[in-house]
C-alpha cells in the first residue's frame, strides 16, 4: 500500500512555563495562600500555612480568595499578593 506523510496536529507547550524564582529559606518570609473558592480548599490551604508556621519562623501569613472558581485571578489581586507576600501557595484545577 502506498505510503505518504501526514502532519502532527498538536501544539506543544511552546511558551515555557514561567516558574517563580525559588525561595531558599522560608524563615522571615511572608507566605500567602490563594483560595479559588471551592469549599474545603480553604481548610487545606490554612492547614498548609499552619504547618509552615510550625516548621519555620515565618514573618507572617496572608490568605486571599479568587472571586470566581474557574477564571484567572484578577490582575489587581495578583498585584496585591505580589506586594504583600514573598511567596504564595495556590491549587490548580476546577
Amino acid at each position, binding site marked *: *500500500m*502506498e*505510503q*505518504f*506523510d*501526514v*502532519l*502532527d*496536529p*498538536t*501544539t506543544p*507547550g*511552546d*511558551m*515555557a*512555563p514561567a516558574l517563580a524564582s525559588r525561595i531558599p529559606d522560608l524563615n522571615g518570609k511572608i507566605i500567602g495562600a490563594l483560595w479559588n*473558592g*471551592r*469549599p474545603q480548599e*480553604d481548610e487545606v490551604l490554612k492547614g498548609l500555612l499552619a504547618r509552615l508556621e510550625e516548621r519555620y519562623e515565618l514573618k507572617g501569613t496572608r490568605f486571599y480568595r479568587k*472571586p*470566581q*472558581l*474557574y*477564571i*484567572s485571578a484578577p490582575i489587581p489581586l495578583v498585584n496585591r499578593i505580589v506586594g504583600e507576600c514573598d511567596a504564595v501557595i495556590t491549587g490548580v*484545577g*476546577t
Partner: protein
Amino acid sequence: MPPTLVSPRVTTTARELNELYFANGWTDGLPVVPPTPDVVAEFVESTGLPPDHVVAVFPDRNRSVTIEKIAVNSVMAGCLPQYLPVIITAVETMAMPEFEFNHIACLRSAFPHFVVNGPIVSELEMNTGVWMWGSGDRATTTISRALSLILWNCLAQRPGAVQAGAFGIPGRQSSLVVAENEDVTDQHGNGWEPLHTMFGYDATDSVVTCVSLCPGFGQVMLSLEDAEYLATAMLEHVFASFHKAPYLITIPPPMARTFIGAGWSKQDLSDYLKERARYSVAWLKKSGRWGRAAQDFPGNRWDPDEYRPKPGDENEYIHLFSKEPGPWDLYVFSQHELDDPRQEIMIIVAGGDGAMDMAWRVPHNGGQWASKKIDRQAGATATGPTQSPEGG
C-alpha cells in the same frame, strides 16, 4: 514557493492513517482526513500569512495557536480553505479577555460556541434553516469539527488533559457553529437587526461571536399570535438555570415575524426579558438554586435551615439581571457574577420556517460574549480543495 511547515511528519498508509491518529490521541473520537503536507501548505498559502504566524495566545494553557496548526486541524476536519477566515476569527474570539478562556475547564462542561453573521454566511452556504443546530451542511459542520480539533490538539481541551466537565457537549464535533438567518421579514418587508449589529458592527460586516454554553438545550412550542405573550412565556422557560450569564435564544422565522410585525426590535425583547426575569425565594429554594454559591454563606458551610422555604418566601423575589444589590443575592450568585455587569440576552433567528418552537441553551457564567470581525483577506485566494490520501 510553498510555505515551510514545521509540524513533525509521520509516514503512514490509507489503511493505518486513523489508527495512527487514534493511537497518538490526535483526534476527538472521529476519523480524520489526512493532513498531508501539500494540502496543508495549500491551506496556509490561501491565508496569505506565514505558517508560523501566531493567531492567538492562550496564557492559561501555555500555548499559542499558529496558522499552520489551524490549517492542519482544518484539513483533518474536511474543511475547504475558504472556511479558514471563520476558523481563524473563531480562535481569536476565544483568546479575547472577555471570553475568559480558562473557565471551559470547569466541571459544568462549558464550551465555546460560535454564531456567524454577515455576507460570509451565504458565501459559504452555511445552513441557517432546517436542522441548523444539528448541522449536516459542510460549512458549519466541518468548521465545528476544525474548532473541536484545535481545542483538542492545540489547547488541551480533552478528557485526560484539562477538560473536567462532568457531561460534555453533545455535538462537540459538529455543532459548535451556527449561522443566523438575517433575511427574515414580515409582510411589510421589515426585518430584525442581526446579532452582530447589536455588538456595534455594520450589517455588511462578517462577524464571529463566541459564547460559552453548557450541555443543556431547551425547546418549547408556543402559539405565535402575540408578541408580549411570547415574551412572557419565554420568562417561564429560559432562565430556570438562574445564572447571571450570557443567554442565547434561537427564534425561528415565524416567531421572529410576530415580533417584527408587532414593532418589537431584538433589543426590545432582550430588555423586556432582562427587566422581568425573576424567581421567588421559595422557588429557588425548592428547585435547588438556593445556596449555589455555598462558599459565600455565613460560615461558608452548608446549613440545612437556610434551604427550607419559610413563610413569605413565595413573595420575595430575586431579579436575575437587577443592577440593585438585594439581600439574598449571595445565596444565589457568586460575588463575581454580582460584580460583572456584562451579562446580556442575545437573540438569533434561525431554524425551519414552519417552526413554532423556540430554543435556548443553558448558559455558563464564566465568560462573556466575544465578537470579532472576520478579516476577509485571510482565505481570499483559496481556490478549492485538492485532498486525497495519497496527496503527499
